[in-house]
């Protein structure tokens, strides 16, 4: 894949397009279920934003605009694959079966994790940019040693692509021919910094310099994302090595709820991308090509609504943890200094002035 144009199977208008190398393997029901996933994660994202506005969350990092990139990649995964996210991969977490309320724990600041990564085969949010990419490659080296038929997928952004750890993970993936798929969601912005500050050429080219394929996909086209991710995962499982997928997409919302994009980007740009909405185009396809009825879409909307209300309920019910839990699981076996702290705080809570 050296072609400079991006892989697209569905236009913003919902028209199918031919691609020399990729074709849709999906039927009506699957496409509808992708649509469902995208609608739900967007709805949950919006609910989370308003929960933050209402002071129920410390912070929220919206995925709006990146639903196709994440649902497409996430749905391509086999249950046995393992994923290593950054902090905005709520859509991936959804496809891995992580309960929405667990995704929000870290944002309610009641934990630094949120779920059992082994249970969902989805690792924890990684806030230090790029660190998770090396974990993914190391995990993939373990898969190789186990002779398992599994692939690993890791996610990072256009900004993180400049971090040494991400670039070292390319060196290692290539050197060990590790079964890992790198999904770079190029949403055009790293907080206030445009992707053009990180690179002057398309980011997927970077893979070629390290000796493995890189491909740019229309990250707002869930059909293309799915097919490209699926093939890259198969390639990894077959022992053919790593792939870099650059999902060309856009961060429609603020970087996080504490960000103010009006300081650094113009609405016109956002408008352009609004016309490339990842959900609308699938809806158009479903209507035109499969005659999906209004009712089906209403059902999805209703389901999303219910889930959103459930999420709100669950979040409001989330209490602050007992302060003494800060001493749990710091070490697998007791550490004298940590235990001394536990005793001190316990006394303060009971006996002390506190």
């Amino acid at each position, binding site marked *: 894949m050296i072609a400079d144009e991006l892989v697209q199977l569905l236009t913003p208008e919902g028209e199918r397009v031919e691609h020399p190398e990729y074709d849709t393997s999906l039927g009506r029901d699957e496409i509808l279920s992708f649509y469902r996933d995208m609608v739900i994660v967007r709805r949950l994202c919006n609910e989370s934003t308003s929960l933050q506005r209402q002071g129920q969350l*410390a*912070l929220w990092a919206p995925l709006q605009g990146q639903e196709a990139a994440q649902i497409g990649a996430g749905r391509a995964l086999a249950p046995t694959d393992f994923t290593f996210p950054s902090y905005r991969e709520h859509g991936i977490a959804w496809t891995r079966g992580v309960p929405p309320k667990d995704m929000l724990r*870290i*944002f*309610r*600041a*009641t*934990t*630094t994790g949120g779920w059992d990564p082994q249970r969902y085969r989805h690792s924890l949010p990684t*806030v*230090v*940019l790029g660190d998770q990419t090396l974990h993914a490659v190391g995990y993939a080296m373990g898969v190789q040693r186990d002779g398992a038929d599994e692939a690993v997928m890791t996610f990072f952004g256009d*900004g*993180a*692509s*400049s*971090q*040494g*750890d991400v670039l070292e993970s390319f060196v290692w993936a290539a050197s060990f021919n590790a079964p890992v798929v790198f999904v770079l969601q190029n949403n055009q912005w*790293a*907080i*206030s*910094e445009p992707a053009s*500050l*990180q690179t002057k050429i398309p980011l997927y080219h970077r893979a070629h310099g390290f000796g493995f394929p890189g491909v740019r996909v229309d990250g707002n086209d869930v059909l293309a994302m799915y097919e490209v991710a699926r093939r890259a995962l198969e390639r990894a499982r077959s022992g053919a090595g790593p792939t870099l997928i650059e999902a060309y997409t856009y961060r429609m919302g603020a970087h996080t709820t*504490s*960000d*103010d994009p009006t*300081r*650094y980007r113009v609405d016109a740009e956002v408008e352009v991308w609004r016309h490339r909405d990842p959900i609308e185009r699938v809806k158009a396809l479903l209507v035109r090509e499969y005659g999906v009825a209004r009712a089906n879409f209403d059902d999805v909307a209703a389901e999303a609504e219910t889930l959103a209300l459930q999420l709100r309920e669950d979040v409001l019910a989330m209490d*602050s*943890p*007992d*302060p003494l*839990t*800060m*001493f749990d699981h*710091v070490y697998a076996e007791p*550490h004298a*200094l*940590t235990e*001394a*702290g*536990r005793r*001190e*705080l316990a006394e*303060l*809570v009971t006996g*002390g*002035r*506190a």
Partner: protein
Amino acid sequence: MTMARALNEGLRRALEKDKKVLLMGEDIGKLGGVFRITDGLQKDFGEDRVIDAPLAESAIVGTAVGLAMRGYRTVVEIQFDGFVYPAFDQIVSQVAKLHKRSDGVYTMGLVIRLPFQGGIGAIEHHSESPEAYFVHTAGLRVVACSTPNDAYWMIQQAVEHDDPVIFCEPKSRYWEKGEVDLDGPSNGLFDAVVRREGVDATVVAYGSMVKTCLRAAEVAAGEGRSLEVIDARGLSPLDLDTMARSIEKTGRLLVVQEAPPSASVGSEIAAALGERCFYSLRAPATRVSAYHVPYPPSRIEDAYRPSVDRVLDAVDRVMEFE
């Protein structure tokens, strides 16, 4: 003005005074930094002097080193304390050692600004207190400001200083207001300052904990106890003379820090003064620190960071010694 504003004004003055001064960091341009410390500076001084950096802390510090070799003085902004670690090798192996390695030819006159400590309800990696790592490292200087006036003057003094300075800013105090005396700095960059006089015990703190200790001192006063509160300001070097003088008067020492206890700045102060003031100390030099755990979810950070009550509990303990 607020500490955030004072830092902004101080940086503006530094940029005006010396054409060789540059600012570099993530999102410090149009956005003005996530804390707006550099607000408006790129607009006024241009993209060549206020540089939005690609996303790599090691490169930010490493290129600042190269710029220093070319005679520039770069003020680096690390967006949050927890993101300084990717640059650790450049800081410890290069920034700290190049003046020595070059027999004084290279001047490492750069400043690494570190919004540090917690208390802002943030997610992980945004509330750390990494100062001990730098205080342990020979070749670096480390300071922490605690008031807008200090912020305004100390940042300018740090920029003018020929040694590399790790400049720690207590982000939880960014929005608190205070008087700024525009006439001139009243203290050297590394001087400890007595913020409140007292006779019963000496309380040494820095950054966010200075205010916490001043509050504790007020409560203690109500209980008939007179605490002398010292703002260390300089962490490397430490102004031990000022602290020792106070201990000669009070005979008791409390060191309060937001960092975890082990091999910390608090350990250094307690060990150094314990040795130096052996005869004047009537109670053991006592540390009040965070706990030996990773920074907890911010919902419970108040139980992790030393509180007024924890300081007062420690005061009770040291006062039990006759």
